[in-house]
């Protein structure tokens, strides 16, 4: 519980120096660019770096370059890799920022974007979307277009995530207040019920189990421009609306009562922050499944290095979350298409442990 106590100390809330902010954000931006280039240029099929650059120049900047590559290379770079990498970045940024918000809001170091029911609700929605055409074949006949229509899965996951958080929030509310502990416990209880539904549907799912499994593990394999078009505006809006709320998040870190003394309309602000972070999470989950770890650990990594001021923490979490997930997905692709959640946990967790131990030794605290 070190983070929870440490974040209450005022020394932690000292304004970050301009140099430190420039280093953190500049480094994050550079990492995003490197991750973007590497993840687009590298894949299971080799496309030369020159061709990759030329294809991107032609398609994105409309440069009049001669086509010296097979059309399959253009499809791979522009229709498969680029939307996939951009999806990874949006999702990674969205989850990391939502995790930052929930950790501050709930004053709980174990909080991640899924903690108050988003994951369970989105999973139930997505699985219902996957199974609907299987259980009711009449729906799938005739359309002839999307078999087990992918759009339905996106939409159900998104709505499922939002609805479950709304449910949790309204159940946790009493006398117009939502105590943090009640919110956490309600989230846990509702998630358990929804998870039972998920398990039941999985048991009955037959062959669709593979699709459900890959969704639950989180996968960017089916990323597409249309998925991006759905999620990008939602994520961009929540990025913008959350970034400007850094001051209120800093105040809420101190506790509900101190925040109220600082002039924050605590209950209203908690609802807004919860809904904005849930919007980002649901949009991310809808196009990628429940990718774990990023939303839990990126905020901690950054807090260990930059301190808890949300003015710096929020934009940094977007940048580092984006870069981390894009690189993790590159690793997942190179490892034969394993779920990206395995890579984030396998590489990220030991790194996190190392950083945690190192920072403890340096600060000399024992907890």
């Amino acid at each position, binding site marked *: 519980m070190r983070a929870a106590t440490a974040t209450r100390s005022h020394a932690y809330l000292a304004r970050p120096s301009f140099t430190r902010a420039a280093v953190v954000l500049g480094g994050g931006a550079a990492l995003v660019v490197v991750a973007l280039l590497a993840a687009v240029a590298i894949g299971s099929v080799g496309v030369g770096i020159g061709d990759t650059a030329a294809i991107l120049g032609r398609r994105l900047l409309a440069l009049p370059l001669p086509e010296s590559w097979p059309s399959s290379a253009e499809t791979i770079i522009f229709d498969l890799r680029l939307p996939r990498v951009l999806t990874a970045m949006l999702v990674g940024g969205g989850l990391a920022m939502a995790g930052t918000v929930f950790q501050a809001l709930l004053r709980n170091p174990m909080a991640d974007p899924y903690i108050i029911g988003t994951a369970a609700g989105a999973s139930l929605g997505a699985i219902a979307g996957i199974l609907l055409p299987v259980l009711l074949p009449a729906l799938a006949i005739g359309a002839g277009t999307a078999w087990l229509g992918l759009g339905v899965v996106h939409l159900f996951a998104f709505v499922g995530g939002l609805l479950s958080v709304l449910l949790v929030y309204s159940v946790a509310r009493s006398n117009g207040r939502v105590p943090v502990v009640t919110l956490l416990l309600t989230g846990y209880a509702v998630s358990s019920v929804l998870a039972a539904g998920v398990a039941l549907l999985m048991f009955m799912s*037959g062959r669709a189990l593979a699709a459900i499994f890959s969704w639950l593990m989180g996968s960017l394999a089916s990323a597409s421009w249309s998925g991006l078009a759905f999620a990008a505006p939602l994520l961009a809006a929540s990025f913008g609306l959350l970034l400007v709320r850094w001051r209120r998040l800093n105040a809420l870190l101190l506790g509900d009562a101190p925040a109220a003394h600082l002039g924050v309309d605590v209950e209203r602000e908690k609802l807004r922050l919860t809904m904005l972070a849930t919007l980002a999470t649901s949009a991310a989950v809808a196009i990628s499944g429940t990718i774990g770890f990023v939303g839990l650990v990126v905020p901690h990594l950054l807090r260990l290095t930059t301190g808890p001021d949300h003015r710096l923490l929020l934009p940094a979490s977007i940048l580092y979350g984006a870069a981390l997930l894009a690189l993790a997905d590159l690793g997942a692709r190179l490892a034969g298409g394993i779920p990206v959640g395995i890579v984030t946990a396998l590489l990220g967790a030991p790194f996190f442990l190392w950083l945690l131990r190192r920072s403890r030794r340096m600060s000399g605290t024992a907890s």
Partner: protein
Amino acid sequence: MDTTRLRALLFPSLLALAVAGCAPASSGSPGPSLPGSSPTDAVPSDGGVTFPLTLTDDAGRSVTIPADPERIVSLAPSNTEIACALDACEQLVGVTDYDDYPAMTADLPEVVIAAQVDVEKVVAADPQLILAAGNELTSSSVITQLADLGYPVLVLYPEDLDELYADITLVGRALDAEAAADDLLTDMRARAQAVVEAVAGAERPRTFYEVGLFEGTIYTAGEGSFLASLISLAGGEPVTGDPLSTSLQLEDLVAADPELILLGDAAYDRSVTAASVAARPGWDGLAAVQSGQIVPILDDLVVTRPGPRIVDGLEALASAIHPERFE
């Protein structure tokens, strides 16, 4: 996610045919169709199909193949076997890591590894036709993705012998190999008919086909599945599991009291034997165990892979169920 489901996931081929029909099968067999052509001009010139050709696949999708495909990707071993049986082995430019028949397909470029379709590799193979499998054997998101990229993706998911015949006809049209398809079907039909005649009038033993036993969960032929229909054709009365999960509880197995146990999993796991089955707790009262009617099916691959060799599987099943009629 418990180990049972994980292991079931890791052995996709084991469950391939044990699943009942969950694909949105259209009414009747999914036959080819040529929209816009009246019955009079639907007669093709000798051995020729007119391209572009529009077909309806087993998922009810309308698929247009622009030209006689010279480069084909197969996303399932059964599809590979169908293509090769229609003399199109040479046109295959991508297969799965499970492919082993005919032998040359083991050396073809792999675009499906550990049941994961590598979409980049499919695109790099530049296929003019992709043969996918239905009911999530090929993930539906991959099918959508490939179709959205503009490739003709034909989804095959036969749920019984007649639907397999229809699929062979369908692929025959897609590959402009209708004569080869007709020859193959004539042979398959004759052999299947011979089996049906050989077992006609015989007692039909209650037959339990063990697809697998993972952590206490029993997997068998799902109700209404291809495997169940094959057991019926081979002269047995199939003991079936849940149509979707293909699993069966031990109580239900005891209640069904099979007179014959066929061990499909013995083909992959040498520790599954008549003796090991008899030693399982609760199994010793089954009629088949009491009478010693437990037969390993080492041809499981042929029994459960819905390709042209399924008639070999049917013959193997029939001779296991009615050895007296195949001496």
